[in-house]
């Protein structure tokens, strides 16, 4: 059928030049063509700023340290033998999973509180609770750094009144991990809050009323109504947050630079240290590329689940 259409088009074009301009106008007039041209700047931007760097880093990851020779997967096999690399894998997982769980939990609880605040007051609370998320993280993390500072820590100063501390917030592995996760949760929880709040508002009140008539308690309402209605939004926000948290750089870089003893390094901070500071750009590219398969697996599982439920609906 398509051939016939093409054939007809060709015949039409040879028959009359006026028809040619008409068909061009038709093509340009199509909604899909207009949509393509409208999105073209964005496509070009993504191609330049995302696709090109992505493929370039793939290319870099296959070079030797001096970037003069193709070594194939040599850099990857080298990394597999490094103790620090496996430590970074473990830490990235601990950091991302713990932070996302806490962000989701805090976001969920606070969203319920905010949802139950009436009208105008709710707007004020919403605005205030979003503040951590709208401050550039590099700036807010600097403020946290001062709170954790070895010489001037406001936390330790306050704790000293209760006879506690001083706590080496960034000098001890446990506390350093706790601190970087805490700051990430503080920064990221408002994102969950706002998404969950939007989802809560879309749950029809009739469902809760019906459940109340049936004698359901608050937990049963959450378990049987709220959570199923929010499942898709929870899945999507978790995925987005997991990606962003895995790729986090600024919080760890500013607070600990990966220390003490590399125990807070994430893929991005270690890639920076290896690639830029130690002038081993191919190995740095290689480290940062390791985020891709981990996140791809997470994305496949979560999105597959969302699709399945979408189809069921």
């Amino acid at each position, binding site marked *: 059928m398509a051939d016939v259409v093409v054939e007809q088009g060709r015949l039409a074009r040879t028959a009359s030049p006026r028809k040619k301009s008409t068909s061009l106008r038709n093509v340009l007039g199509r909604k899909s063509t207009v949509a393509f041209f409208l999105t073209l700047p964005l496509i070009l931007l993504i191609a330049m700023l995302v696709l090109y760097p992505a493929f370039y880093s793939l290319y870099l990851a296959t070079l030797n340290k001096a970037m003069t020779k193709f070594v194939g997967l040599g850099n990857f096999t080298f990394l597999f033998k490094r103790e620090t690399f496996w430590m970074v894998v473990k830490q990235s997982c601990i950091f991302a999973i713990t932070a996302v769980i806490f962000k989701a939990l805090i976001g969920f609880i606070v969203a319920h509180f905010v949802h139950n605040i009436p009208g105008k007051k709710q707007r004020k609370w919403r605005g205030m609770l979003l503040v951590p998320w709208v401050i550039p993280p590099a700036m807010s993390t600097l403020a946290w750094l001062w709170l954790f500072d070895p010489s001037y820590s406001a936390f330790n100063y306050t704790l000293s009144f209760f006879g506690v501390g001083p706590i080496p917030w960034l*000098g001890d592995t446990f506390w350093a991990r706790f601190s970087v996760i805490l700051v990430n949760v503080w920064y990221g929880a408002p994102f969950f809050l706002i998404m969950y709040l939007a989802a809560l508002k879309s749950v029809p009140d009739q469902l809760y009323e019906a459940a109340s008539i049936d004698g359901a308690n608050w937990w049963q309402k959450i378990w049987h109504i709220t959570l199923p209605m929010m499942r898709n939004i929870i899945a999507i926000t978790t995925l987005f947050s997991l990606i962003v948290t895995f790729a986090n750089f600024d919080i760890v870089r500013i607070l600990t630079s990966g220390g003490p003893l590399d125990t807070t390094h994430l893929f991005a901070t270690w890639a920076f240290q290896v690639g830029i500071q130690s002038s081993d750009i191919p190995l740095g590219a290689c480290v940062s590329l390791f985020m891709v398969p981990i996140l791809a697996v997470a994305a496949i599982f979560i999105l597959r689940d969302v699709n399945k439920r979408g189809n069921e609906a």
Partner: protein
Amino acid sequence: MSRKTLTRRQFVAATAMSSTALIAAPYVRGAYAAGKLSIGFWDHWVPGANDASTALVKEWGEKEKVEVSIDYITSNNKKIELTAAAEAQAKSGHDILQMPSWWPHAYSENLEPLNDVMEPLIKQNGEVNGTVKYLGQSGGKWLAVPATPGSQIKGPCSRIDLMKKHAGIDVQEMYPAGSPPKDDNWTLETFLKAAEACQKAGVPFGIGLGETTDSVDTAGAIFQSFGAELVNAKGDVTVKTDAVRQALEFYKKLIAVLPPDAPSWDDASNNKWLISGRGAMIMNPPSAWAVAKRDAPQVAEQCWTHGFPAGPKGRFAPFLPYFWGVWSFGKNKEAAKSLLVHLSSPAAIEKFVVASGGYDLPAYANMTKFKTWAEEGPPKGTLFHYPDPYHRQTLSIAASPAPPKIAQQIYFQATLTKMALRFAQGEKMDTALAWAEGECEGFMRT
């Protein structure tokens, strides 16, 4: 429509007249006849110090008729390293780029050889120290010219009062302003005893154990004082040696009397430690003292910068030079070289030292006795021994003498401090050594 025809005779006459006019006319040189030059300088943290660079460059540009543009690039968050990496990849950028210590070697393939600049400069200014040669030369080729701005020694900056009171050491008597030091008893042993005494008194030495340069530089000098090398000059891994074991034993004792959160310190932490009045000594160039002069004058007037304690293999001081490199893909290399000669003249070097309040250190042997260091204060003479005027120390960099491309990784991965910290935190000596050996083997990649 009128149309004029040009006869052959008219054409010849016009051509002859034009040629005569061109030949006879005086040569007028344009304001920027020698082209353009773009420079990336390190953005100095001493207020007003950039003005000296700007003035010197402007003076040269006007004389040489070169249009010059300067970008001051901060070293915060590795902006210079990022700029160097981007320019080396793009093969485009500034003609001259100021680079931190390890970068001339890292980009040796992209840098213009500067032997024709360095050889006359050494004749004029005196020999450069071993660390400058180690970092600035490769196979007899000068990769870059040592820059005075930013180059520094990270020696001890002691509190006169606290050291006298708690450790019984008069640092001013040991390092008198205007005269040679009486430092025979200033050894690592004395240093450790003083550290223990000050810790007991509640004013511990503020030495970082983190992964940033201040922590690594101190560790480097201490390891070198024991003759401990993780990788030797030939590139062989030499971690499991008696010298390394001795250095680790010493560090373990030292770590026990340092602040408990020293493993998390960055390059600002030791400055804050001194300025807050909580410590008796830090290892830093005079920037901490300069800030104290502004923010805590009562602390500043008790500060005295002096030499490093000696170990069994000598007295080593952490030296961190900056360099000016000329990209081989630069567009005006001859002008760049001419400017570097101008910036390395004795008069220019003195201007840099004055503008930075004595912070900047020239790499040349004949330039360690400028008036600035003798006169800066309070207390007067506090910086006299900062440039090591009597050449009592070996100015060195951590991880040397390993081949620079390996040493750079030992340095930036902070292998020395991490190894010392592992051992001090209870890991067995052999395990810590095996870990460091594994790391160094990984750094051998080419």
